[in-house]
């Protein structure tokens, strides 16, 4: 009886254990399934924090079922949630490549660029073709991110697409395509970009010049100097900017050669580049002050002012005495930036010299005002009281106001 009872209890226990053993895996699976399901549901939760957490948890789970919902989450109205979804897709990795590549064809540009960004971070050459195809997209953000992603992947099958993108109408896209080419080509990037400086497409020439500037490889200097006289102003200006980044004094004379360019932007970039070259450019710029046209003189004066060497003071004063009003103005601004006290005596002398033309005397008064030197107050008051020319008196009065603390009697003007 006892044995029977014991056997019965043991039998029951065995049955229970068997049920648990059989039910165990199923229960575990259900729980896991419920976990993913719950997280997927949470992607639509009204609390953005919960949506973001769910996205990241799904990414960590590596469950491929989450890929499509996560791509959909790239449209979430909260940027944090979108970023978590992108990170989750990157975390899932290779299984995401196909769906993300397909998302590059989405109608939603926001989804497209984020898909491109995620593909770049997954960093797998299986995405090269899809990303290269996205480079001619209508949307500049998508083009930018396609280039950025290709730059991450560094697959040289993307070279042609990136070279095309180097001629993109959008400067940011051109810049990113240049970065991607540099990243993909590595040591060979400079040679490729130098070759592209002779491309038929002016935008591509601009992109190549821009990228060479960032690369700062001095072997590009000669090729960049050659396109300083390109027929497209954008190319000339980009070449000048790149030469400034190269900071090679070899470019000084060619850059001075375009200081008289008809395009303001080209002149600006040339001045900036010469300023970047700095002291080694001073001597040539001083020569340009003496020997060139007014536009070049004006630009040379500005560059000398920005370089700020004291040996430029005399030549700048000479330019003031001999140049046209614009050159005089540039010389004064430059002198004010270099060393006011060294230039002041020359301008005081000019102001008091009745043999000097009246407009030059008026500019000398203006210069003294710009120098803001208290020592000029007396001569300016003299000019204000005694100069025969009303323009000189007016200019002296304005200068005195600049110097400050001087009351200017209206009647004396």
């Amino acid at each position, binding site marked *: 009886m006892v044995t029977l009872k014991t056997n019965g209890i043991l039998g029951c226990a065995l049955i229970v254990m068997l049920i648990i053993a059989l039910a165990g895996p199923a229960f575990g699976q259900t729980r896991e399934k419920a976990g993913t399901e719950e997280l997927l549901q949470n992607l639509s939760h009204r609390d953005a924090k919960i949506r973001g957490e769910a996205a990241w948890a799904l990414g960590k789970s590596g469950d491929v079922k989450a890929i499509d919902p996560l791509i959909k989450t790239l449209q979430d109205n909260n940027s944090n949630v979108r970023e978590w979804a992108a990170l989750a897709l990157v975390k899932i990795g290779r299984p995401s490549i196909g769906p993300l590549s397909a998302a590059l064809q989405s109608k939603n540009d926001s989804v497209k660029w984020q898909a491109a960004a995620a593909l770049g971070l997954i960093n797998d050459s299986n995405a090269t073709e899809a990303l290269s195809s996205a480079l001619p997209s209508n949307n500049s*953000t998508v083009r930018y991110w396609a280039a950025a992603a290709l730059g991450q992947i560094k697959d040289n099958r993307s070279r042609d697409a990136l070279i095309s993108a180097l001629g993109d109408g959008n400067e940011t896209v051109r810049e990113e395509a240049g970065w991607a080419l540099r990243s993909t080509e590595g040591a060979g990037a400079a040679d490729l970009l130098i070759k592209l400086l002779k491309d038929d497409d002016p935008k591509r020439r601009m992109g190549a010049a821009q990228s060479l500037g960032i690369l700062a490889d001095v072997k590009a200097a000669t090729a960049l100097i050659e396109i300083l006289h390109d027929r497209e102003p954008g190319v000339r200006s980009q070449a000048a900017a790149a030469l400034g980044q190269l900071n090679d004094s070899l470019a000084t004379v060619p850059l001075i050669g375009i200081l008289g360019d008809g395009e303001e932007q080209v002149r600006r970039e040339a001045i900036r580049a010469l300023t970047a070259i700095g002291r080694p450019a001073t001597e040539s710029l001083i020569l340009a002050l003496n020997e060139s046209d007014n536009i070049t003189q004006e630009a040379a004066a500005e560059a000398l002012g920005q370089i700020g060497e004291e040996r430029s003071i005399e030549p700048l004063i000479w330019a003031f005495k001999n140049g046209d009003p614009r050159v005089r103005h540039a010389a004064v601004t430059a002198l004010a930036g270099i060393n006011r006290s060294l230039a002041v005596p020359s301008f005081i002398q000019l102001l008091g010299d009745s043999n000097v033309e009246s407009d030059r005397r008026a500019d000398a008064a203006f210069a003294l005002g710009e120098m803001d030197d208290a020592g000029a107050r007396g001569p300016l008051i003299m000019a204000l009281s005694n100069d025969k020319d009303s323009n000189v008196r007016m200019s002296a009065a304005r200068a005195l106001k600049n110097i400050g603390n001087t009351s200017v009697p209206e009647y004396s003007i």
Partner: protein
Amino acid sequence: MKSILCFFICIFIMSSFSFCQDASIYYDNLAGKLVSAKNLSEARDLFNKSLDQNPSNIDAWIHKGNAEKALRNLNASIQSFNRATALNSKNAPAWSGLADVYSQKRDYANATTAATQLTRLDPKNKAYWLNKGILQQMQGDFDNATLDLDRAIAIDAKYKDALYRKALSELSANKTDQAIELLDQVIAIDGKYKLAYNARGQALEMQGDYKRAIAAYDRALQIDAKWSLALTNKMHALLATGRQKEAADILLRI
């Protein structure tokens, strides 16, 4: 009507541009998220990508510096913060990061240099003066530490951390009365400041007043019963007064 229309056009234009992001900033943002999720190595990779895109991204250098610090790569962290200060010598978070990492490396001289930059950048920031003062104390330069701590106290007369630190400087110079006075100020500001009770106990011990020293340690232990430093100090004071059994009891508890 026209202005309302303009407003909506502006909103539309802004919203259409809002998704356009610089790659360097985007990667930096993503990396920041990974840091918050404690995935530091992956975050560092993303910071590197951010800086690959734009080596002038100061924020990314600082964030990378913090990630490297958390990964205990102190030299790499210093390099990152140095890059940030080279890009902008007035960047307080970068100097602050440098001061912190050098402190962790126990390189107090360089930490003090960084802390000095912070006090120059913002002389009205009491925490910067306190930090510099503490670093001076770590190098045993209590006189200069007191000068820095005085600057902090001048900004906030009730700055308990600075008052406490100044008391430590006074203690180091055997000026126990002045130290006790400062510690009493700290306790008046914050009755739960256990460090002040403990330091007060030490000052009283230095004066030979073991009974009151033990009482001060007890106050510290009322706040934190398991605080080994106060327990050890109390044990020492008990031994000095011949209360060996009580001292032994504490020894067993530590």
